[in-house]
């Protein structure tokens, strides 16, 4: 049993469990599933800077910080108690393309060549970590939500603006992964 749980979980198990978070949060206390709002509440709590967008009672949304705390804790548990002893399986085509850019680490879920403090001091790492993070924070708020808020909560509630957002998330991702990222990885 434990050995099975240490192996990567199939998509349907993950999909069902993530889908059940929607009713769990609603029934536990009328909370709508989403995560990018944390960044906004962090701004409202730490640097409101007299910006109207950050002037609200952020303490009413602290539940979202507690939720994120759980995600962090759950990841620690999974990485220690349920760690997969095998290297990560990557599609051979992707693996070959990445090898051409010197990305060969398959020991963890993130390649060390890109996700490390050393990488932060390279142009490539700087663009991917600082630039990528900035786009995630700016874009999710501009769109009014992220993958959990729009793609899962919004679509579950049949909101068509969320469908628009989900489609543009995917379009942006396709453009970056296929046409821009190869140039960045080559830096």
């Amino acid at each position, binding site marked *: 049993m434990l050995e099975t749980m240490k192996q*990567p*979980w199939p998509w349907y*198990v*993950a*999909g*069902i469990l*993530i889908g059940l978070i929607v009713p*769990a949060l609603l*029934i*536990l*206390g009328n909370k*709508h599933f*989403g995560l990018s709002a*944390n*960044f*906004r509440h*962090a*701004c409202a709590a730490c640097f409101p800077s007299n*910006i109207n*967008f950050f002037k609200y009672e*952020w303490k009413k949304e602290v539940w979202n910080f507690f*939720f*994120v*705390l759980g*995600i*962090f804790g*759950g*990841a620690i*548990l*999974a990485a220690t108690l349920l760690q997969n002893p095998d290297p*990560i399986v*990557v599609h051979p085509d*992707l693996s070959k393309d990445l090898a051409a850019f010197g990305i060969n680490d398959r020991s963890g*879920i993130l390649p060390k060549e*890109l996700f*490390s403090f050393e990488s932060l001091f390279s142009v490539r790492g700087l*663009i*991917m*970590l600082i630039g990528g*993070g900035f786009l*995630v*924070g700016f874009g*999710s708020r*501009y769109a*009014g*939500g992220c*993958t959990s808020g729009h793609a*899962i909560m919004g679509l*579950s*509630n049949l909101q068509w*603006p969320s469908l*628009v957002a989900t489609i*543009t998330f995917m*379009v*942006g*991702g396709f*453009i*970056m*992964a*296929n046409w821009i990222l190869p140039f960045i990885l080559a830096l």
Partner: protein
Amino acid sequence: MSQINTFVEAPVLTADDRDFEVRSLDTMCVNESHIQHPWWYNFKYTLVGIIFGIVFVKAEIISWFRIQEMFRLQSFHMYGVIGTAVVVGALSVFLIKKFQVKTIHGEAIEFHPKKFNKGQIYGGLLFGLGWALTGACPGPLFAQIGTGVFVIAVVVLSAIAGTWTYGYLRDKLPH
């Protein structure tokens, strides 16, 4: 009907309503509850988060490789995860509405329709670019730190800076 001749009073906006208006601005997930609880009641969301975090790691949803495979159409995995989650979520919301399910505190569960604005297009595209770069959307970032990749804390700080910049420029951006 005696109501026909009576005037309908304009709803008075309380400070609480106005706060909700700002809080729910450009934000999908909001606290719809009107009940005040002691702060430690929030640990129930930590429990839900722990399950979510374990799933994130074990189904490799937080892996940069899986996100690249998704956008390169090399794997069905992420489509399967998101697709199943939406079906289960939609079915749950449907049942909650149909049977008017209440929260564990007896409160009616509220839904507010979301309005369309151009931000969902421009912002969505920018978010998508960032998603493929970092290989993570906001939730997975926190899980990645939990697995011991501490440099992601820098990505989180950058995302907070991005959100702040959006708030700063909000009035000048097309919506």
